[in-house]
């Protein structure tokens, strides 16, 4: 890769971030943020991290924008033809206190640069990384070393991260407790409805292929689950909210989410029962198979499926609890806690 071209891409990335910072309008900033995510994914590809690039691409297109727009439309009631069509002055002059903060930030950047660059950058170092690269194929049977690290060597971390997502979904559900689900079926136009009936099955097919081939190619439970959640967001956006409420009951999502969690923990407990340790793979008696074929990797495909169910149902119910209309806001301003 030519260094000049790499520098060009980094300059575009920085310019997108700065314009997302300086734009006066929130919607424009959100659009710039989505372009920033696309560029970040390309930079991850240049840095030879296809797994991370795939995750960034999947999260960025669909999830982030939809969550921002839901929150924005909850706080801002649009008067048609008045609010967003006017010409917006993009940049605003700096105030005095902002100049001070700008100098503070430049100083912070200078010291970070002075601190990081002498550290240099490591070649492939560390016993853990060398062990993973040399023995992951033999010990786990998976082709994707990142999946092997994520679900075999560091499976307990992944369980903790699933718990974080569960906590977030619970918190959002509690925050939007006194709200009701508004049913409406006036979605987008007829052309979009019919075409999306062709596209959405392809999206779901691709999501399941990402989940099932997680041990062979980039991808896995996190990415596939997010694509599933994006497909479920498409239902609400394209067909209206009553379509989704009629097809997929919230109870189904709750069941899927809990089943994913229990499945993950149960697979870990099998290892504990055989005496090999929590979330053990080959030592617990899972057949490792031949490396590179579909049935390989022992428990890694099963754990991928569990994480896919969990993340898909979790992110989808996160969106649908935010899309509800707030009905009973707090009365007045809450006082200080005595």
């Amino acid at each position, binding site marked *: 890769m030519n260094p000049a071209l790499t520098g*060009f891409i980094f300059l575009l990335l920085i310019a*997108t971030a700065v314009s997302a910072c300086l734009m006066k309008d929130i919607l424009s900033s959100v659009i710039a943020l989505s372009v920033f995510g696309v560029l970040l994914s390309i930079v991850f590809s240049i840095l030879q991290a296809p797994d991370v*690039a795939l995750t960034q691409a999947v999260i960025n*297109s669909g999830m982030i924008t939809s969550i921002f727009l839901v929150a924005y439309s909850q706080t801002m009631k649009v008067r048609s033809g008045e609010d967003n*069509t006017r010409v917006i002055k993009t940049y605003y002059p700096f105030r005095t206190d902002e100049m001070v903060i700008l100098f503070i930030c430049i100083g912070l950047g200078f010291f970070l640069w002075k601190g990081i660059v002498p550290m240099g950058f490591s070649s492939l170092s560390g016993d853990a990384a060398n062990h993973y690269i040399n023995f992951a194929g033999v010990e786990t049977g998976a082709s994707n070393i990142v999946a092997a690290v994520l679900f075999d060597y560091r499976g307990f971390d992944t369980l903790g991260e699933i718990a974080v997502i569960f906590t977030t979904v619970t918190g959002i559900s509690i925050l939007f407790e006194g709200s009701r689900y508004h049913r409406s079926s*006036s979605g987008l136009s007829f052309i979009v409805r019919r075409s999306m009936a062709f596209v959405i099955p392809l999206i779901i097919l691709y999501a399941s292929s990402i989940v099932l081939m997680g041990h062979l*190619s980039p991808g896995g439970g996190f990415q596939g689950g997010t694509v599933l959640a994006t497909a479920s967001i498409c239902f609400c956006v394209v067909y209206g909210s009553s379509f989704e409420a009629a097809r997929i009951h919230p109870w189904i999502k709750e069941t899927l989410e809990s089943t994913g969690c229990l499945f993950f923990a149960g697979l870990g407990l099998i290892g504990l029962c055989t005496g090999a340790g929590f979330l053990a793979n080959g030592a617990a008696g899972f057949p490792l198979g031949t490396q590179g074929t579909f049935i390989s990797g022992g428990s890694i495909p099963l754990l991928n499926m569990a994480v896919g169910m969990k993340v898909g149902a979790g992110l989808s119910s996160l969106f649908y609890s935010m899309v509800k209309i707030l009905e009973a806001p707090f009365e007045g301003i809450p006082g200080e806690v005595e």
Partner: protein
Amino acid sequence: MILNLILLGLLIAASIAFWRLMVGPTVPDRIVAAGTLSIILTNTLVVLSLLFRNSVFLDVALVFALLAFVDILIMAKYFEHGELHK
């Protein structure tokens, strides 16, 4: 060498479209610029996978081709109805 030149051309196109994203007077202009940028950058990713001689990066490009338009659909829904749940 020729691939590098093609990459350079695509990046120049991306930066020209990025100009519209920065100055675009209304929000729909920026949305159009963002859609154009996502397609140009997907092409960039395909050319990068040729340059690295590795077909793994095509998976990422496939995700962009399938999902990048969902952003535009969500924005269109917001502009048409004012809310996402209608």
